[in-house]
């Protein structure tokens, strides 16, 4: 093989492994904390990819006190029910320059899986995710293992509320 051909093949392999165009969206709960930009379509794709599991989607932000307050309850429930198939998709609504703060918070809370940060225009993001959502934070959806949306609420809830919804979707 001459050098030109080798270089060409190497470049093709590299570009394939790095991905061309839109970045791939990780499946939730891939091991290791990460935070990547995602449109509403990509969040919904992640929900779809997780079919077979109960999925809880939570939109939060570091600067949103109710979001921060309910976060530990969600993580406790994740620890409790992950063996029964619960997956969590956290989507940060922090601004573009706050990604590191969001990541630090996630780490502090013991999140060790892939998470997302909202990308794109607000209105398209809100309506694509759910037209019933007003845009207020926090917001939570619970999907059953067949991918059906079972519960949706805006605003902070206590652990018992989350647990009831998760158990309902698990049954």
């Amino acid at each position, binding site marked *: 093989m001459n050098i030109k051909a080798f270089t060409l093949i190497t470049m093709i392999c590299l570009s394939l492994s790095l991905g061309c165009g839109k970045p791939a969206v990780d499946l939730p709960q891939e091991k290791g904390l990460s935070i990547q930009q995602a449109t509403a379509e990509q969040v919904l794709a992640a929900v779809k990819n997780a079919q077979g599991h109960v999925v809880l989607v939570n939109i939060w932000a570091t*600067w949103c006190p109710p979001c921060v307050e309910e976060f530990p309850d969600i993580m406790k429930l994740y620890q409790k029910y992950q063996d029964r198939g619960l997956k969590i998709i956290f989507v940060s609504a922090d601004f573009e320059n706050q990604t590191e703060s969001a990541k630090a918070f996630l780490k502090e809370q013991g999140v060790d899986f892939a998470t997302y940060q909202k990308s794109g225009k*607000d209105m398209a993001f*809100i309506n694509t995710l759910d037209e019933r959502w007003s845009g207020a934070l926090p917001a939570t959806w619970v999907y059953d293992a067949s991918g059906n949306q079972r519960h949706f609420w805006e605003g902070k809830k206590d652990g018992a509320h989350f647990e009831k919804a998760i158990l309902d979707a698990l049954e």
Partner: protein
Amino acid sequence: MKKKLTLGILALTFAVGIGFTMGNTVEAGSALDLNAKAPKTEVKMKGVDGAWHTINGVAGEKGTLVLFSCNACPFVKKWESRMSSIGNDYQQKGVGVIMINSNDPSKVTEDGYDEMVARAKAKAFAFPYVVDATSEVARAFGATRTPEVFLFDAKGKLVYHGAIDDNASNANAVEVPYLKNALNALIAGEAIPTAQTKALGCGIKLRSEDS
């Protein structure tokens, strides 16, 4: 026949039972519909100027702009200068303007009255910035987040509800100035181009209903 009826009743009972135990739940905000009249227009709310204001009291000859806002929310901070400028400008053009803070300051200390006074001064609000002391006004409007705006025409009917514009982070990168477009159309007597919009915002920290 009797057997069929019994089976039917059993099936119905089962279906209803499933519905109760596995019903989907939705708890989303339910704001005023377009064309609805402004509620709670006579509720007196204390302004940062020390005077009491009502929505009716500020109504303009062209219409009335009700802005649900606060001090603490980062989205408000991003949009605050634009809200101040729009409020001040359109108040001069015949639109009454009132900014309402419905947050419970015991939950968000930055939303206390003194802090509101300081903020209004710093941002040069030329319109009333008032305290919704029981959060009843936000509840009646179905407002869920800050900032969230409701624009009423001269007859008091809702003609626009939603966001300030389509870019909280960067005023220079706004593609559609929703609220300004609605205000200009209202003043010109034209149809509102986009009557309902949405943006992310901080959930309003309502006071408890027995407060």
